[in-house]
């Protein structure tokens, strides 16, 4: 790495260097939570019923079984919003007197091995007085519906409304209106690594180390200390290698709290690894939402006004720290998308049901609202008899900064340009010809567009606007050069697959004139890393990257100051490159490693400069919008309802790209999840609230066969709202794909007069729509 670039004058930022993370992960030397040995294993006894009172729990003799009765001193998890008529509901660590969804932990069994713990858990007798569960949000909203939590009348846990001035007047000027309902079924983020936790008591210090699969180690520490009433200094939280999260590992798992409680009480070491069934039924779900949407257009197919009623089924409890407001509030704030109109009337409600708790999942609501808005655009295009790409061209914003109908400020982006690139790359006239030929042979091809914005890297004001009691946003980075000349960046973000150890090292390397392999990024350990908010919401490269740049600029300034003493030259005349400080235009140089060493060991030489090299950067940006246009081509088999995605194209703009290889990987992964969300993935409950999709043979994530080659086109509009000029791009792939794919299905089936307005568009869903259309005809 160093040889290739010595004296090349190239920057590290912008280059597709290989990842520093890879060697350990490729050789089986990654460290995941479940790899740790433990003295005791924990198994949770979970409720088989969706609703009911707990009458009796009988444990086998001599077994260590913990129930709510043992946890009288432990507070429930009670996340809080101070806005939107939010009704706080508490989640006990183990169900306390009542169960509210199938899979809720009722008791914890402790044994010397996992197998033994499972045997004992099977022998625990649980008597429940079943109640009739409420599974669907519409049933929960029905007058007289049983109340799931006493504190939330009508089962509405929060509601929000935005009505812009003169909405009704503008609505009445419409030339055409389009109204329909869309539905997103319930989904599960399904990281490949199930959740796991390991809590160990240390007799020497009285402290507990919790190693767990989390995206936010510091907040996990704060939350558990709050719930258990223990000093935070006595808890160390480690997120080692984490096998994907996609939001699911962001929320506080009650199971982790119990592990720490056990370690404290019994002064020993306890481990728990969930099985896939637990992950699918009892971790966190997402995306269960319906939207009644209406759009008003003028005679030129220009959107004038948007009216929406959003109902989000948030499950049985509210997730910590975001609260269950994360889905409905994201939806109401971002539904207007990147389209230019000013009249907006929207209501969003979060509704409690007897289902698994809802939490963030890659994209948070935006896959759904983008699906809704892009269906609207396609339906309107049909009504006006214009191409879907054309109606988007007429409506996309193009002047910046732009203030949306919901009040968000969009920074400069390339909505029109990405649409143009996608349009040209797809060869629309050629496709329409192939489509017509296909139909003549009984083959149904379709094309679908999705244009959207992806709000990324937003700091604390954006979270404060939601009234969150816990307001994440900023990030801190501590960057030090040790006496051997090696660099350590200690960060509050907590990457788990995003390659941040590599991209941050690239940012540092450019500032300090060294190679990225000399930079070690330390994360995921509350004893080693500064307080921070972890990795979620496409924020880490923007916020933690910005903080890294700030810290690196300070370290650079210090190195120049030290070098100016040693080389007897003005700091402005010194450059840092190839691991050396050089006086420009001379052969006077000194290795950076020597500067570092002497900053600690020869401080007397530097006339009062503070010893050592360690600098801190903290960054709290306003947020920036990435953007993209996705295009999917599909073929639908009308006999079986099977959809094959035959082509997928992304034209996207995430500002300055730090490492193109890693950026492409994020888009690929997002698109694949989006295609899974669009076609296959659905958590199904029966009418009693029993989950029917409790294995990976029932909850279908896509395989290599279902994902076509993804064509990427990049634009780079540097963000003025991000220090590194980079925008986030972790979620965009997944935001655009459901809309593009299902629009393509509708295009393929346009001859039949069917409208598929739900995701996933499974074969059953497509066949049902075709049958309905046949019956009508």
């Amino acid at each position, binding site marked *: 790495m160093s040889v290739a670039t010595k004296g090349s004058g190239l920057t590290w930022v912008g280059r597709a260097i290989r990842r520093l993370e*890879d060697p350990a992960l490729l050789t089986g030397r990654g460290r995941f939570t479940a790899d740790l040995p433990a003295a005791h294993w924990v198994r949770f006894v979970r409720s088989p019923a969706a609703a009911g009172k707990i009458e009796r729990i009988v444990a086998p003799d001599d077994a260590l079984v913990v129930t709510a009765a043992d946890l009288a001193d432990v507070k429930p998890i009670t996340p809080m919003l101070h806005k939107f008529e939010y009704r706080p509901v508490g989640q006990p660590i183990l169900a306390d007197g009542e169960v509210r969804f199938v899979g809720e932990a009722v008791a914890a069994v402790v044994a010397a091995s*996992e197998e033994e713990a499972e045997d004992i858990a099977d022998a625990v007798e649980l008597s429940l007085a079943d109640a009739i569960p409420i599974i669907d949000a519409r049933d929960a909203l029905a007058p007289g519906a049983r109340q799931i939590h006493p504190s939330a009348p009508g089962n509405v846990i929060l509601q929000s409304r935005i009505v812009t001035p003169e909405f009704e007047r503008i609505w009445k000027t419409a030339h055409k209106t389009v109204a329909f309902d869309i539905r997103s079924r319930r989904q599960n983020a399904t990281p490949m690594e199930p959740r796991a936790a390991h809590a160990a008591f240390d007799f020497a210090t009285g402290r507990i180390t919790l190693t767990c699969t989390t995206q936010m180690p510091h907040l996990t520490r704060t939350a558990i200390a709050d719930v258990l009433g223990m000093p935070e200094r006595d808890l160390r939280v480690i997120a080692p290698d984490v*096998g994907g999260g996609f939001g699911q590992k962001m929320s506080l798992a009650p199971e982790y709290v119990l592990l720490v409680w056990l370690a404290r009480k019994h002064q020993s070491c306890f481990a728990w690894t969930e099985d*896939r069934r637990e992950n699918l039924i009892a971790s966190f779900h997402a995306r269960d939402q319906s939207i009644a949407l209406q759009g008003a257009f003028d005679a030129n197919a220009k959107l004038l006004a948007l009216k929406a009623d959003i109902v989000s089924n948030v499950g049985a409890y509210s997730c910590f720290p975001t609260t269950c407001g994360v889905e409905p509030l994201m939806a109401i704030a971002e539904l207007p998308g990147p389209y230019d109109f000013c009249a907006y009337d929207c209501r969003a409600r979060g509704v409690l049901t007897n289902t698994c708790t809802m939490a963030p999942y890659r994209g948070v609501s935006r896959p759904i609202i983008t699906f809704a808005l892009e269906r609207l655009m396609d339906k309107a295009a049909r009504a006006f008899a214009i191409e879907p790409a054309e109606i988007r061209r007429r409506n996309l914003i193009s002047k910046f900064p732009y203030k949306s109908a919901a009040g968000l400020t969009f920074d400069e982006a390339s909505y029109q340009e990405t649409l143009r690139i996608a349009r040209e790359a797809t060869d629309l006239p050629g496709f329409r010809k192939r489509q017509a030929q296909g139909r003549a042979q009984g083959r149904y091809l379709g094309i679908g567009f999705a244009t959207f914005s992806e709000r990324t890297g937003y700091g604390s004001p954006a979270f404060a606007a939601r009234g969150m009691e816990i307001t994440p946003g900023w990030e801190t980075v501590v960057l030090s050069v040790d006496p051997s000349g090696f660099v350590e960046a200690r960060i509050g973000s907590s990457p788990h*697959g995003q390659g941040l150890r590599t991209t941050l090292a690239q940012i540092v390397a450019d500032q300090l004139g060294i190679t990225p392999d000399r930079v070690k990024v330390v994360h995921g350990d509350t004893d080693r890393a500064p307080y921070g908010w972890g990795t979620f919401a496409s924020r880490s490269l923007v916020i933690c990257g910005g903080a890294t740049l700030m810290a690196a600029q300070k370290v650079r300034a210090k190195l120049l100051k030290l070098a100016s003493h040693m080389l007897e030259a003005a700091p402005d005349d010194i450059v840092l490159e190839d691991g050396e400080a050089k006086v420009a235009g001379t052969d006077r140089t000194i290795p950076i490693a020597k500067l570092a060493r002497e900053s600690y060991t020869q401080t007397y030489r530097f006339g009062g400069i503070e010893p050592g090299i360690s600098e801190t950067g903290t960054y709290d940006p306003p947020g920036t919008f990435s953007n993209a246009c996705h295009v999917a081509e599909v073929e639908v088999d009308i006999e079986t309802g099977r959809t094959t995605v035959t082509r997928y194209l992304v034209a996207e703009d995430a500002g300055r790209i730090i490492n193109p290889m890693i950026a492409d990987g994020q888009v690929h992964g997002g698109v*694949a999840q989006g295609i899974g969300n669009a076609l296959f993935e659905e958590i199904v409950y029966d009418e009693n609230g029993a989950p029917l999709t409790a294995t990976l043979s029932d909850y279908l994530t896509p395989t*290599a*066969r279902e994902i076509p080659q993804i064509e990427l086109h990049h634009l780079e509009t540097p963000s003025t709202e991000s220090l590194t000029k980079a925008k986030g791009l972790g979620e965009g792939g997944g935001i655009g794909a459901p809309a593009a794919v299902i629009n393509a299905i509708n295009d393929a089936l346009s001859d039949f007069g069917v409208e598929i307005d739900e995701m996933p568009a499974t074969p059953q869903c497509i066949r049902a729509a075709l049958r309905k259309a046949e019956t009508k005809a």
Partner: protein
Amino acid sequence: MSDKVPITLKINGCAHAISVEPRRTLADAIREDCGQTGTHIGCEHGVCGACTVIVDGAPMRSCLMFAVQADGKNIRTVEGLADGDTLHPMQQAFMDNHALQCGFCTPGFLMLAIGVLEREPDMSDDDLLDVLSSNLCRCTGYQNIVKAVRAAAKEMRK
């Protein structure tokens, strides 16, 4: 619960004499009794393939095999692929092509691809895609896994 049975697992050429309950899966025995934690467990019902190892030359899902069934057999896991600091061509291709993100499914994909290509080095690209469809990855969208395996297949044929 049943009594433990003494068995020997030969993992990457090293014999591990262990005692396991007959119901213990090979995956658990490799990880917990033999301490080789590079093999990961993703679903325990044979769908995701994260636990794939090579048993007597064939890729197997170690969560679907009992440890006692592997008694005396030659088992290869991800820990045995590299030769010192030199990565196996498949590992190198995964690194060069960014075929991993979180790395949890990676050992299973490596063992699957290597096990199949050692038996059928000339497998067509399309058949390889079918083989790779037997394991699940949630991070990469498979784009770079497919690319890496095709590149390594070429390298392994040399």
